[in-house]
């Protein structure tokens, strides 16, 4: 099947408007006869469910948590981008579009990104109307801050809890529709398969996680907003329950899976403390507005720090290596995430890491505290030479901006970041790859849509900070509700979809068979045993830096691990009760397949772009020496993989990317 992105013709700035003017609509009376399933209730799924219900469709929404408000969008910290240009600093729809395409290392679809930039401003209007309490200035207007990879201030925020506030906004919009009976909410339900009837997605099979009951749910269309697959690495900033199962089952039913190797390793996370670690915690990128990243210049200082004989605050300015400021003077500490992560790895690999494991760098707020302190002292007419006072005033400002993050750090690490620099290290955070979708956000299965992080769409090979929240809400509030109507306009006479068909029965039986296997298999290792081993392979061989040898080994090792899993996994309890091990077994089984495809995709892409860094593709000389080298001639395409059984049999389809409005350039932040 040839991939058709269905991108509308015409000038980029007019595409979305013209397209909306010409697609088919469903009249309000007919919407009442149409059912839509939404899987996942994060920013994308929650906003889509609410909006579809408002439009008049009958929505069934599903989440595996005990309430839609728990979805992991809630943990997003720093902010949401929008091309409002409230600061008058030169922002515009075009500039947001440009920054996003460049930030994504020219591997995203231009038309989608432009649309995203176009609807971004409306998101802010909408959220304010919903009562989302964004940060404000003293004049009562909305405040902004800067994020990595851009030269303007376009990020709206609510302290370090922007994701929480936006998700609770979407949750409240859902609640209004649940109260009206337009959304039927299924909490603690996990989707375990997509059901296709006559080639179209017509429903899902779910497991009630409390009773264990297997249920059939039908609809005229199915929307997946089920998040990213970072937990294939076991350790990531994702929630413990975040998984790829919904997307992977869709893949097995015919949805192509795109760019699995594009994974974002976030530069500022709290370092691993030991083998017991179950997850990693992000320290928001917004901290790089005020925090300066460094390691000691001298190896003697590094050793003294590791031995506990020297405090970082005792190292003089001239003996510190602010390596981002040194290497990238134009963007400094605010280079994009992939660049910042690789730079941290480079310093730690060279032996300059500052914790016991040698895998940490400093994020230091001392100069920001002094700067803010002096500003406050000036405003209040106080003594600018009183160092203790300046520090106190400065700490208050920093607390106001990032208080919750500092508190999180202190609780985990047991050190006070107001008085000593934070230690940070890169960790898996976000996945740019995902289920392939066209301009309508429809997958290669008719009637099956995919939105938010779960799809591959808008961020190319690297996502800029504060753009995930933007994309999730853009897809759910403003894009999908339009585009899905074009498809559903053919279904106004279809009537309710029966769940008694052989397709539903077969899918249900298959799900039951797998669950039964797990329960009856007399294995010897827990699910986590396999998950942790998979994570180690992924991190060591398919992580921040990749090469042919490591990737080839990873493919073999993951396949062997998968085979061992199916022989030796041990799941206690039964299938007709609450059984978290059983739920985890199904998720890890899917990760074990995805992981191999991930490595295969990374092996196929013989270039460095964004979060995908190949050691055999770097600039060899000139100003950019050592930086990632893209290969636009051979790899300016989306890799969309078709399921054929084993991951090794997956077939590659290419969506060639056309760049008409942006010139392809070396991405320089120097």
């Amino acid at each position, binding site marked *: 099947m040839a991939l058709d992105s269905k991108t509308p013709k015409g000038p980029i700035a007019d595409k979305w408007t013209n397209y909306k003017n010409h697609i088919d609509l469903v009249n309000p009376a007919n919407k009442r006869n149409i059912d839509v399933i939404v899987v996942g209730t994060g920013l994308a799924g929650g906003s889509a469910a609410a909006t579809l219900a408002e439009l008049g469709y009958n929505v069934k929404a599903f989440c595996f948590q005990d*309430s839609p408000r728990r979805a992991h969008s809630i943990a997003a910290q720093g902010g949401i981008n929008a091309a409002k240009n409230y600061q008058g600093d030169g922002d515009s729809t075009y500039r947001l579009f440009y920054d996003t395409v460049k930030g994504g290392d020219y591997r995203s679809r231009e038309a989608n990104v432009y649309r995203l930039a176009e609807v971004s401003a409306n998101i802010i209007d909408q959220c304010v*109307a919903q009562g989302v309490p964004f940060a404000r200035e003293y004049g009562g207007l909305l405040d902004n801050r800067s994020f990595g990879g851009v030269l303007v201030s376009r990020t709206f925020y609510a302290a370090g809890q922007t994701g*929480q506030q936006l998700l609770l906004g979407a949750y409240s919009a859902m609640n209004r529709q649940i109260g009206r009976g337009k959304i039927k909410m299924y909490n603690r339900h996990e989707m375990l398969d997509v059901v296709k009837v006559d080639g179209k997605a017509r429903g899902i099979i779910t497991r009630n996680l409390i009773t264990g009951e297997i249920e059939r749910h039908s609809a005229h269309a199915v929307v997946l907003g089920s998040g990213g697959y970072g937990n294939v690495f076991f350790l990531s900033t994702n929630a413990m329950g975040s998984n790829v199962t919904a997307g992977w089952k869709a893949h097995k039913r015919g949805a192509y899976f795109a760019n699995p190797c594009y994974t974002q390793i976030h530069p500022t996370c709290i370092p691993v403390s030991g083998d017991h670690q*179950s997850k990693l*915690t992000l320290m928001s990128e917004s901290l790089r507005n005020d925090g300066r990243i460094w390691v000691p210049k001298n190896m003697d200082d590094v050793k003294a720090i590791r031995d506990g004989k020297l405090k970082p605050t005792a190292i003089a300015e001239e003996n510190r290596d602010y390596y981002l400021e040194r290497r990238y003077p134009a963007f400094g500490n605010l280079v994009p995430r992939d660049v910042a992560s690789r730079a941290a790895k480079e310093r730690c690999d060279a032996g300059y890491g500052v914790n016991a494991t040698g895998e940490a760098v400093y994020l230091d707020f001392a100069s920001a505290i002094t700067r803010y302190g002096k500003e406050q002292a000036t405003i209040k007419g106080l003594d600018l030479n009183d160092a203790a006072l300046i520090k106190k005033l400065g700490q208050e400002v920093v607390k106001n901006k990032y208080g919750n993050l500092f508190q999180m750090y202190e*609780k985990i690490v047991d050190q006070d970041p107001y008085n000593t620099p934070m230690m940070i290290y890169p960790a898996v955070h976000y996945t740019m790859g995902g289920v392939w979708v066209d301009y309508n956000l429809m997958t290669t299965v008719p009637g099956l849509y995919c939105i938010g992080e779960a799809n591959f769409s808008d961020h190319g090979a690297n996502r800029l900070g504060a753009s995930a929240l933007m994309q999730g809400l853009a897809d759910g509030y403003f894009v999908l509700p339009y585009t899905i109507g074009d498809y559903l306009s053919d279904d106004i006479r279809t009537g309710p979809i029966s769940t008694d068909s052989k397709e539903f029965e077969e899918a249900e039986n298959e799900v039951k068979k797998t669950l039964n296997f797990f329960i009856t298999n007399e294995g010897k290792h827990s699910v986590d045993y396999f998950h942790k081993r998979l994570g180690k392979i992924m991190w060591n061989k398919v992580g921040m830096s990749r090469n042919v040898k490591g990737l080839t080994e990873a493919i073999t090792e993951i396949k062997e691990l998968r085979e061992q899993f199916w022989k030796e996994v041990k799941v206690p309890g039964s299938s007709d*009760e609450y059984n978290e091990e059983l739920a985890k077994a199904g998720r890890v089984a899917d990760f074990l397949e995805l992981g191999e495809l991930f490595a295969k995709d990374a092996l196929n892409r013989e270039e460095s772009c964004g979060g995908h860094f190949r050691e055999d593709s770097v600039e060899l000389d000139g100003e950019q020496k050592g930086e990632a080298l893209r290969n636009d001639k051979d790899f300016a395409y989306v890799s969309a993989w078709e399921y054929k059984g084993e991951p090794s049999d997956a077939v590659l389809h290419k969506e060639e990317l056309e760049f008409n409005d942006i010139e392809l350039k070396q991405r320089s932040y120097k």
Partner: protein
Amino acid sequence: MGSMNLTLKIWRQKNANDKGKMVDYKVNDISPDMSFLEMLDVLNEQLINNGDEPVAFDHDCREGICGMCSLYINGEAHGPDREVTTCQLHMRMFKDGDTIFIEPFRAKAFPVVKDLIVDRSSFDRIQHAGGFISVNTSGNTIDANATPVNKADADKAFEAATCIGCGACVATCKNSSAMLFVGAKVSQFALLPQGQVEATDRVLNMVKQMDEEGFGNCTNTGACEVECPKGISLENIARMNTEFLKASLKG
């Protein structure tokens, strides 16, 4: 600080209809850098390897924001530390040889599902009754900066809105009152101009649903504020009472 050996006394209950009981377990070599839930992971791995059923507990983000984790630890919701959820509680708060009591959140409106897991859907139903502003999300609204909001009000609204809906306030309250939870939501909207239009209906509907769910009354002991992992202020209860009175007078 070295590793710890601990005795755990944990509530085990097969399902909602089971009577349930406390069961003793031992865990060894617990690192002070582990989170409380990572310590339970160690126990569960041990149980699974011995062919026993692991302890069921709710958790997801493990960074103190999703509100899914709960647990009543040594008689305190989210355990002995302040302004943290159980997932942020670290084992350095305990000593080698300690015995730790671990129970579910207990309240009539939070029935036990299994072991340490409770059903908090009553919270959702209170939100369905009025925890929103009735604007359509798909349409075009006014520009976000068309209505300035006093920074102090916006900050207070935000502070109220940081409630994570974990239910620690209910579990802590001797009356199992949900006033802090409901007060926080009512306050968020009451402090913003956008929330004024439906203020009357909102507070009446949410309080009505709260009562129907079987939550108790507030007798102003303030225990909820102390145990709240997000430091939600009692001010919010006072503000809700004011809003309720205003609404009742309007009818």
